[in-house]
């Protein structure tokens, strides 16, 4: 767990800086530069420091309705229109890679996803160093290094791209890369904590953060195992296929917090025919939304007022704590939370030559993976936000004391300072918005031959939402007969 150590700015007013210990001297600088800092927070906090998400609305609507070519056009236009800054490039690469994949443009998808993976590797350590060094900076000002679940599915979607092009070798490489990342995940955050602590020693801010990442409990992806099991089987490596089948089962047994449902029936070989394997990407993964918290103390009323805006309820709620307070403080902070995007899809069925073959079963809940892997970094994000809010709140308080000249003018000045503090604080809501929410699979034995296949999506009421048709698909014995369907509804 992470802890926040309070600063020593309480000693500052009126104390000459040269007589202060180093940490307090840093606070003194912060104090004296208060107006300048406040102005810079105002300048950088309102525009470029807030995550731009509005432009995604029509794109996501198109994605949900299956207009993937339009999604590609929308994303490329957004890039051209500079909706993405260079610091946001990873989000663009992931979403564009996914959009091109859904549109069946596998080469371009791989190029974008490859860039996403490179950017993530390049930026992760840098982002941790910067997070330690600059408390003043809103997280939105830093390069976005991606969440682990985004990078994991980058590899798995790339693997699907290579499989669509019948390139097993490269599909295998992507599975290995995904598995490797999961193996190194715990180490990655242990290293990140070291980098953070080392860089934090150079920190000049008033508040020290002790970042200790929460242990990552996700280390084995059932979807990655399912893909590699089939690939091994198709290349005649049955013992490796068996091993992956066992590892898939182990993913369910050892990670019930991710796989809180029964594992699907899986099969990669049959004496009586070929195995048709179907993967369906359904719904959309969670996205980040801001939870805004405001804490105000009122010395006249002896009250601590807590306000928060819940991303799901959308309301501002109030809580009051009667407490003897000696100063009027105002702290505002916004933190990102992962919020589910409900899917309409309740059932997915497979048909061959118009006849019902079977139903797909859930293999991986991307939302559960997202929530679990986000935990490791969440404490750092939250504590940085809190530390920044405290530092800004203290500076704002000092400015308000100066501005408190009485009368309407003084009141207006104080209100303006509160507004500045409010608008300059924005949660970093950057995340991929086109990741699928759930992955369903099914392995069905069919006599070798040519089939007109279809995958149909249904809602809870049994109403057909859409489907995909694969005419003249050749099911062969001993090969990985894979079809993929997508519905992001």
């Amino acid at each position, binding site marked *: 767990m992470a802890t926040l150590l309070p600063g020593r700015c309480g000693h500052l007013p009126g104390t000459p800086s040269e007589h202060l210990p180093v940490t307090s001297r840093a606070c003194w600088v912060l104090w004296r530069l208060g107006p300048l800092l406040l102005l810079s927070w105002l300048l950088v906090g309102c525009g470029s420091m807030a995550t731009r998400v509005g432009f995604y609305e029509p794109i996501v609507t198109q994605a949900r309705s299956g207009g993937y070519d339009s999604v590609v056009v929308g994303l490329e236009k957004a890039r051209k229109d500079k909706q993405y800054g260079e610091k946001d*490039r990873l989000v663009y690469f992931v979403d564009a890679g996914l959009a091109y994949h859904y549109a069946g443009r596998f080469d371009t998808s791989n190029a974008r996803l490859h860039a996403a993976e490179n950017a993530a590797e*390049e930026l992760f350590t840098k982002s941790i160093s910067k997070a330690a060094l600059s408390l003043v900076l809103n997280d939105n000002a830093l390069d976005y290094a991606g969440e682990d679940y985004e990078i994991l599915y980058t590899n798995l979607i790339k693997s699907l791209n290579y499989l669509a092009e019948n390139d097993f*070798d*490269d599909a295998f*490489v992507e599975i*290995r890369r995904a598995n*490797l990342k999961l193996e190194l995940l715990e*180490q990655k955050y242990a290293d990140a904590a070291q*980098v953070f602590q080392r860089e934090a020693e150079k920190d000049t801010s008033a508040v020290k953060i002790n970042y200790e990442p929460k242990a990552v409990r996700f280390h084995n992806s059932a979807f990655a195992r399912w893909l590699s099991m089939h690939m091994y089987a198709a290349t005649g490596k049955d013992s490796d296929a068996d091993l992956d089948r066992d590892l898939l089962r182990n993913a369910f047994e050892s990670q019930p917090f991710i796989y809180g449902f029964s594992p699907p029936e899986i099969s990669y070989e049959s004496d009586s025919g070929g195995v048709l394997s179907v993967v369906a990407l359904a719904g959309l993964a969670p996205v980040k939304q801001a939870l805004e918290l405001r804490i105000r103390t009122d010395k006249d009323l002896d009250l601590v007022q807590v306000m928060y805006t819940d991303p799901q309820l959308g309301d501002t709620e109030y809580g009051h704590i009667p407490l003897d307070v000696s100063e009027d403080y105002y702290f505002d902070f916004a933190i990102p939370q992962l919020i589910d995007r409900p899917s309409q899809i309740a059932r997915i069925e497979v048909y061959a030559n118009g006849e019902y073959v079977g139903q797909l079963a859930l293999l991986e809940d991307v939302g559960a993976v997202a929530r679990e892997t986000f935990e490791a970094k969440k404490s750092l994000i939250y504590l940085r936000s809190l530390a920044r809010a405290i530092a800004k709140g203290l500076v704002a308080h000092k400015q308000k004391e100066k501005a408190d000249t009485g009368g309407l003018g003084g009141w207006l000045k104080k209100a303006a300072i509160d507004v500045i503090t409010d608008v300059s604080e924005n949660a970093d809501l950057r995340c991929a918005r086109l990741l699928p929410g759930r992955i369903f699979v099914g392995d069905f034995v069919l006599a070798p031959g040519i089939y007109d296949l279809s995958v149909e999506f249904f809602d809870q009421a049994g109403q057909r939402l859409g489907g995909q048709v694969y005419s003249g698909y050749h099911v062969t014995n001993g090969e990985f007969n894979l079809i993929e369907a997508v519905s992001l509804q």
Partner: protein
Amino acid sequence: MKGMFLTVVIAALLLGCGGGKQITRLDPNTQTDLSGKWNDTDSRLVAEEMIADCLSRPWLIEFNRNTGNKPVVTVGTIDNLSHEHIAIETFIADFERELINSAQVRFVAAADWRAEIRKERSEQQEFASAETMKRMRNELGADFMLQGAIKSIVDQEEGKQVVFYQTDLTLVNIESMEKVWIGQKKIKKGISQGSTKW
């Protein structure tokens, strides 16, 4: 003062216009390690070292002594079992080049090349003149096949990755299935990430 201002403006313009992409031609034999990932230099050096090792081992002398001929070698499958996308065709080509250039073995084309050549020869039977037509069933049969795999192990510390590449090759007698040579070459590389283009 005015002249200085003009000079500064012109200099700024010149500097501003000269910021295009620069291309430098490099000697293909120079070692370039931009990212730390597997590259052409690794492929070439591993092929050179492993083939040199292979050709310095007793199996070659024994074969020469027993048959009085140079052994005929072909390259089979070299699997990429690493976590990197490796251009295996380039790697195989490096092995083939080293084997042929050694002049100590004779070399026949790999299976996927043979199919195309056989098709051409087959068509010659129908379309080429009798004088120029190449005979069927007159290929040089390989005595040995080289097979292998590249594997990788990744370690990570403080965000820096160290990758350990291991290439394993085996030379197998095609008739007896006897393994006559096993070679192994290890490379350890530190990986650093460059800037992603935007």
